[in-house]
């Protein structure tokens, strides 16, 4: 009986896999792989606790991003075969008309044309790679596109809220070898694809991730939305391992758009320009005795004995986002001062950079702070903005998921650095352990960030050494040494405690209603009249 069931399931899988075959080569190959490997699932890699190991860098093998249904080619939209079971999305009549209107106006009406977060399931089949990290309690997906991430709780924890999110609220559970993810709390602003397929805030998505072999995940999403569709419907497609790809890089959609249209202008004094700079200087290597925690015995530890830094944290930042030196000005959150080197001093500025920092405090310069545009905070700013972050740790990676919707991936495997020409908002971070301290050295920064709201300066020559030292089970000491010979006369160091928090990440989709940028632009332009 059981055997017959298995056979039926396998035949079904093979049939559906054939059904998803797309016209282009990758899909055709993957579909063939799907059919072949479904009969031999013993090649699936596994975690120590026996679950299928989904970790790695993946990208969809289908043209679903352009249109979920069968579609002929049109401008900037290659043809593709349907990934919808039954080939047709069961719209209610009014919604079918709305979808047709969306298609006509897609160039401007598609939420991605403004670089908004794509939502689930759309993010899963965009033609950009993403990386999966898996622990017993969580599964994280970090996407190249706009540095979106998903944190999927698989341990029954996580905050329950009535809030709507662009990326929804994902809770996973293992059903045999399939990871089932229930996605709720959607807003009504995302689309399913570039063809204008859409939903309401009543959307409910149930995803199923099944590994067919070491290099193929079968991805299914059951979609339910009684306000828009006449019945539930389902899509399925393969996710393919991106062999030979060692990193997920950044595609900061909004920043690229604003640089292209002139809304965010280059500063040649600080931005990296190809050919203008030398090789990235090595990060300062400061091997020193690990500051002993209050009780090394009370630390959480990984099976390999390294400290376990996983969890939901926020820096007790001492007002660092409004200045590193002690400050007590009206209308600025007070600051105790976080600069530990030079001790008792100020930042060791070069004269030109000090003048620039002071200039940035004029109201007319408020527009120039990249975070006012909702761009990534950079390093180390992302750690001390007044927003929490989640740390996910595996034996080979530490991943920082930042509530303001971006991520930092820190490999611990001693790999080589990126070439000098690849510059990133969050740089190229490599980590290693020095005793119980996690040391992260970051290079390849782009010089586009400000260090805080009072305009402290960094350039593309910036390198950062961060040290995360656990103090007890619920607190770390965070230290960052910044070296930037273009801006400063010597390296300097800030330090602050980082404390475990109750609750969990609540998505901050900064672009969704950023009226402030226009107001800041008014102030800037008003001053030029």
């Amino acid at each position: 009986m059981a055997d017959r069931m298995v056979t039926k399931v396998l035949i079904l899988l093979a049939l559906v896999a054939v059904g998803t075959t797309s016209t282009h080569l990758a899909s055709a190959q993957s579909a063939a792989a799907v059919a072949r490997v479904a009969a031999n699932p013993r090649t699936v890699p596994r975690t120590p606790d026996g679950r299928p190991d989904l970790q790695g860098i993946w990208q969809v093998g289908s043209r679903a991003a352009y249109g979920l249904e069968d579609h002929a080619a049109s401008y900037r939209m290659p043809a593709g075969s349907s990934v919808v079971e039954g080939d047709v999305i069961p719209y209610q009549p009014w919604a079918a008309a709305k979808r047709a209107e969306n298609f006509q106006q897609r160039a401007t009406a598609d939420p991605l044309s403004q670089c908004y977060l794509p939502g689930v399931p759309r993010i899963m089949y965009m033609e950009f790679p993403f990386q999966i990290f898996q622990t017993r309690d969580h599964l994280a997906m970090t996407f190249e596109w706009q540095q979106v991430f998903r944190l999927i709780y698989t341990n029954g924890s996580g905050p329950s809220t009535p809030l709507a999110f662009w990326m929804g609220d994902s809770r996973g559970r293992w059903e045999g070898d399939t990871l089932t993810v229930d996605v709720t709390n959607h807003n009504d602003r995302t689309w399913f694809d570039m063809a204008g397929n859409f939903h309401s805030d009543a959307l409910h998505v149930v995803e199923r991730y099944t590994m067919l072999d070491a290099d193929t995940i079968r991805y299914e999403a059951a979609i339910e939305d009684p306000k828009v569709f006449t019945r539930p419907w389902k899509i399925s497609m393969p996710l393919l391992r991106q062999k030979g790809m060692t990193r997920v890089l950044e595609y900061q959609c909004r920043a690229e758009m604003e640089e292209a249209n002139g809304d965010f202008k280059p500063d040649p004094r600080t931005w990296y320009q190809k050919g203008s700079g030398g090789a990235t200087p090595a990060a300062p290597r400061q091997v020193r005795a690990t500051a002993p925690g209050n009780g090394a015995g009370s630390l959480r530890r990984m099976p390999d004995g390294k400290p376990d830094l996983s969890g939901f944290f926020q820096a007790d930042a001492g007002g660092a986002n409004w200045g590193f030196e002690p400050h007590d000005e009206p209308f600025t959150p007070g600051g105790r001062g976080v600069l530990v080197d030079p001790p008792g001093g100020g930042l060791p500025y070069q004269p030109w950079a000090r003048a620039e920092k002071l200039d940035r405090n004029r109201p007319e310069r408020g527009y120039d702070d990249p975070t006012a545009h909702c761009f990534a905070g950079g390093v180390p700013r992302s750690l001390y903005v007044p927003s929490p972050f989640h740390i996910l740790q595996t034996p080979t990676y530490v991943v920082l998921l930042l509530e303001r919707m971006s991520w930092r991936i820190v490999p611990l495997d001693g790999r080589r650095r990126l070439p000098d020409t690849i510059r990133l908002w969050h740089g190229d971070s490599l980590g290693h352990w020095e005793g119980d301290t996690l040391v992260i050295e970051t290079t390849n920064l782009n010089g586009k960030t400000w260090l805080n709201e009072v305009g402290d300066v960094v350039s593309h020559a910036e390198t950062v050494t961060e040290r995360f030292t656990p103090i007890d089970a619920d607190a770390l000491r965070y230290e960052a040494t910044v070296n930037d010979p273009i801006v400063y006369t010597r390296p300097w160091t800030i330090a602050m405690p980082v404390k475990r928090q109750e609750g969990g990440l609540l998505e901050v989709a900064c672009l969704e209603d950023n009226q402030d940028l226009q107001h800041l632009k008014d102030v800037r332009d008003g001053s030029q009249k």
Partner: protein
Amino acid sequence: MTRGVWLAMMLWCAMAAHAAAHHSFSAEFDINKPITLTGTVTMVRWSNPHGWIYVDVKDANGKVVNWAFEMAAANQLYRRGWKPEDIPVGTLVTIDGWLARNGSPMANTDKISLPDGRKLLGPAASAAPVSP
């Protein structure tokens, strides 16, 4: 109320004003132009990077102007116990804030007083950890 307590409250409110900000407070709002307005809520936007509350306010000539008040980010409001339904459309509110520099009827607020006496205070000290 003693002067010291009042001063402390004022300071706290001032600090609250932009602790959540993703942009420079003083670049967008004028710290030398505090205002207090009373009017009827027309819309609340529970959004990021800031929530917004819109209020119809009668000026000295009886003309109604729709004012926009910037609040903290949606998740910060939520973590502090606010819910979107706390301020339904039509509620009469008194709002303290600081005027925008761009000359539009807009301000940053951290203190909204409701008719039943409740005060929805802004994200004071949101720069500090949510819990120990």
